[in-house]
């Protein structure tokens, strides 16, 4: 961690920033940086679409009656919202986007191990997204992002449901290809002198994520194929009228879909571990603990799926086993949270947008994590399962967690990706609006769920109306909060202040090349001058010497 390797060769000499021409982003480019940005921009567009769907859902819920859209279409709205946000926004953004852009740069590689596979993985998500959006013209799927049979087999929207299945199969395939690529890249393409424990924590997180995705996604694919058979050719894998078992689908679905939560959040944990140290000018606290905890979450994450099924008629012993496994996940997650807080403690916090979003992430993810522990307890879960408490919980994890983390990452690496700085003032406005909007939208949902409001309903008991109005106002603030970011990002990309190679004085390898980096990342061989987190007054001189020599 603290070793200062003797530099062997100049890394940046002669590296001129390399702007990628705009049309390159529309090609079958095999450059990991182009693919990373392709993923980020595409997924962000899907985020805006998913957000628009969510806004429609919330406006509908401003009143207890279903008066904006009819109940059947309402079901399509939240189904597509969930599907888009999970499969086309968070997963592609954190793994495809940040993973592709950063992993090779962080480990001193020229590209990913399989560049063409990488491009294929990205280009699979485009037809998947277009198909899903196109299904609005034929009647989109309306059975929730979980698509539980028999409802998903008996649905009126046969075509929409079939398109949904195909779309999930495509993104699933993309995810598997990406996972293989990351594992091979991280395992075999680290630069000379970088062992596993001097690798940035984001790479550890990507490693854990990829293992998880590789093990779990094929099961989802299997479930989708069988569901497709039931839907289209009348087999009876999950259809009880023909002797099938709908609960088996739930096992298969959640075997993937709970780990999918970690696929979404582990890379964000990695992002946070990269953002906090340079902006608080302290080494990450407990590097090994954070690295091991990622792998622990990966291992435990495979054995918690049945906590989604405490009310599904699972046997007792299964509930107890999964309750204990679920509660245990709190331990490695807690280790990470405590380590981040300890990193901040005593630092010199530069409260710019990246750190604000990172701290926003910790404070909101904490709430999602704590409600997660409550949900892990089987008796507690049984009352609030399928209610707004669960909606609140997973939005605190996936919005407060993933989205805040993604924003922290975008503000942190935007200078590296584009060669321009984002405007700090608008970044802070963006943060404040997002933070307020998020808590206003999802905070009161905890109360709704505990008091008795089920999720996925267009009509609800009028006693819940006042709290729903607050949630809807929050959602509109949240929708509006993206405006300053979009304007800031687009404007800054073209006209923003020029970014130096290393505007944050950060120590991970990606900051040792130009902003934006040249093709193949470095002119000569990259040089490991310091450990990735050797911040701190005591290291300052050594660091400057090492950098000067390099």
């Amino acid at each position, binding site marked *: 961690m603290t070793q200062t390797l003797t530099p062997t060769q100049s890394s940046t000499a002669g590296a001129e920033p390399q702007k990628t021409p705009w049309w390159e982003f529309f090609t079958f480019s095999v450059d990991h940086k182009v693919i990373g940005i392709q993923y980020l921009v595409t997924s962000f567009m899907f985020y805006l679409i998913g957000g628009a769907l969510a806004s429609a859902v919330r406006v509908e819920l401003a009143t207890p009656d279903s008066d904006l859209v009819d109940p059947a279409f309402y079901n399509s709205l939240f189904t597509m919202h969930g599907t888009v946000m999970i499969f086309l926004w968070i997963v592609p953004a954190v793994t495809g986007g940040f993973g592709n852009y950063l992993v090779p740069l962080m480990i001193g590689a020229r590209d990913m191990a399989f560049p063409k596979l990488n491009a294929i993985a990205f280009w699979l998500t485009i037809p998947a997204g277009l198909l899903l959006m196109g299904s609005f013209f034929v009647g989109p799927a309306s059975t929730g992002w979980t698509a539980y049979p028999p409802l998903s087999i008996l649905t009126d929207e046969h075509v929409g449901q079939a398109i949904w299945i195909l779309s999930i199969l495509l993104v699933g395939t993309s995810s598997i290809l990406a996972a293989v690529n990351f594992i091979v890249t991280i395992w075999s393409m680290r630069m000379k002198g970088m062992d596993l424990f001097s690798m940035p924590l984001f790479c550890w997180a990507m490693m854990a994520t990829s293992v998880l995705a590789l093990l779990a996604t094929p099961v989802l694919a299997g479930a989708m194929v069988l569901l497709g058979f039931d839907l289209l050719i009348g087999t009876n894998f999950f259809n009880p009228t023909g002797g099938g078992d709908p609960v088996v689908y739930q096992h298969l679905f959640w075997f993937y879909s709970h780990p999918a939560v970690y696929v979404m959040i582990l890379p964000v944990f990695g992002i946070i571990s990269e953002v906090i140290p340079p902006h608080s000018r302290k080494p990450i606290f407990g590097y090994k603990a954070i690295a091991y905890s990622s792998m622990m979450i990966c291992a435990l994450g495979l054995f918690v799926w049945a906590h989604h099924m405490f009310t599904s008629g699972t046997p007792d012993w299964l509930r107890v086993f999964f309750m204990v496994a679920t509660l245990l996940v709190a331990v490695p997650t807690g280790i990470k949270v405590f380590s981040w807080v300890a990193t901040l403690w*005593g630092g010199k916090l530069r409260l710019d947008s990246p750190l604000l979003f990172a701290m926003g992430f910790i404070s909101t993810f904490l709430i999602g994590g704590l409600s997660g522990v409550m949900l892990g307890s089987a008796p507690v879960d049984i009352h609030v399962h399928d209610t707004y408490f669960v909606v609140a919980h997973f939005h605190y994890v996936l919005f407060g967690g993933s989205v805040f983390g993604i924003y922290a990452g975008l503000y942190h690496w935007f200078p590296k990706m584009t060669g321009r700085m984002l405007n700090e003032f608008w970044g802070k406005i963006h943060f404040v609006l997002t933070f307020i909007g998020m808590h206003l939208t999802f905070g009161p949902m905890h109360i709704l769920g505990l008091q008795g409001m089920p999720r996925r309903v267009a009509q609800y008991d009028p006693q819940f109306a006042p709290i729903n109005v607050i949630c809807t106002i929050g959602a509109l603030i949240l929708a509006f909060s993206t405006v300053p970011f979009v304007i800031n990002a687009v404007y800054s990309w073209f006209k923003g202040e020029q970014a130096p190679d290393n505007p944050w004085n950060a120590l991970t390898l990606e900051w040792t090349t130009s902003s934006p980096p040249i093709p193949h990342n470095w002119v000569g061989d990259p040089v490991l001058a310091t450990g990735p987190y050797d911040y701190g*007054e005591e290291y300052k001189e050594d660091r400057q010497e090492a950098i000067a020599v390099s």
Partner: protein
Amino acid sequence: MKVNNKLISIVVIIGLIIAASIWYGRNNGLLPVAAGDEATLYDGLFNTILAIAAGFFLIVEGVLLYSIIKFRKRKGDEADGPAIHENLTLEIAWTAIPTVIVMWVAIYSFDVYTAMQGTQDLSGMAHGGMHNAVAHVDHAAHHESGGMHSNSMTSKATLASSNNNGVMMAGVIPSEDSDVVAINVSAMQFAWVFNYTDEIATAELHVPVGKKIRLNMNAVDVLHAFWVPQLRIKQDVIPGRETYLEFTPRVVGEYPVVCAELCGSYHGGMRTTMVIDTPEDYAKWLKEQQEIASNDPEAIVASRPPSQMSEQEYLAGKVAQMGITSKK
């Protein structure tokens, strides 16, 4: 002296956090009225876990806020922070403490979980509470009894529960001294049907206060979930299987029965009422229902299987009266 002051401050702050957490755990007011024995057990567990969560919340958010104020970079200060990488004692402490706490929560949860189900046989068929068993439909018996039952779903439930030991079978009016009141529940898009006997089927659930109630539940079309928020219990109702739910109502009153599992367009409208009656009111109500049934069996639309009903009958008979407005 300085060290002592610091120590005293830490002890005082931790004491205040613990006190605030315990107070919040006891006074959160987040749950609706507890109308059954299980709900009381549930609330104890919920409040305890909430208090623990509140403690962690206050500690972490407190440290974050303190850091923002105390450790933010001052103007012109370009120095780094201290180069602290790790502290083994601290790391062991914050791994061990949460591990002990979550294991304790797991044990307490298991304890409450088994208590919520009463003295059930956890080993196999005769378990109650929120359980299921695949409905074993004896086809021969089913045919024999077919003429005696008003619909096939009812007979299926009756046969399934007759396989279980120790609890009263569905389809029998509970006598005064019986321990368990068994009611067959059919869930369908978008209504609940409660079968008390072969004759009595209602859209509203009535249960006597203080008796153990056992619901033998099955679904005729898609997944549904039976939930009464004031009882804190929920169980999916699954086509092709029979699931059970047991509870003991304690507080007389009217409570909502909610479908919690997405079941189609009018899922949000699949609501009805559960009335916890005094024993006298319950007996009276049951008698009334018997009279209605004997006078006009067809009056209860929902006693017929859904295959014999039109969609309009469902919606008109069950859903429209629940206040649903359809745009279609």
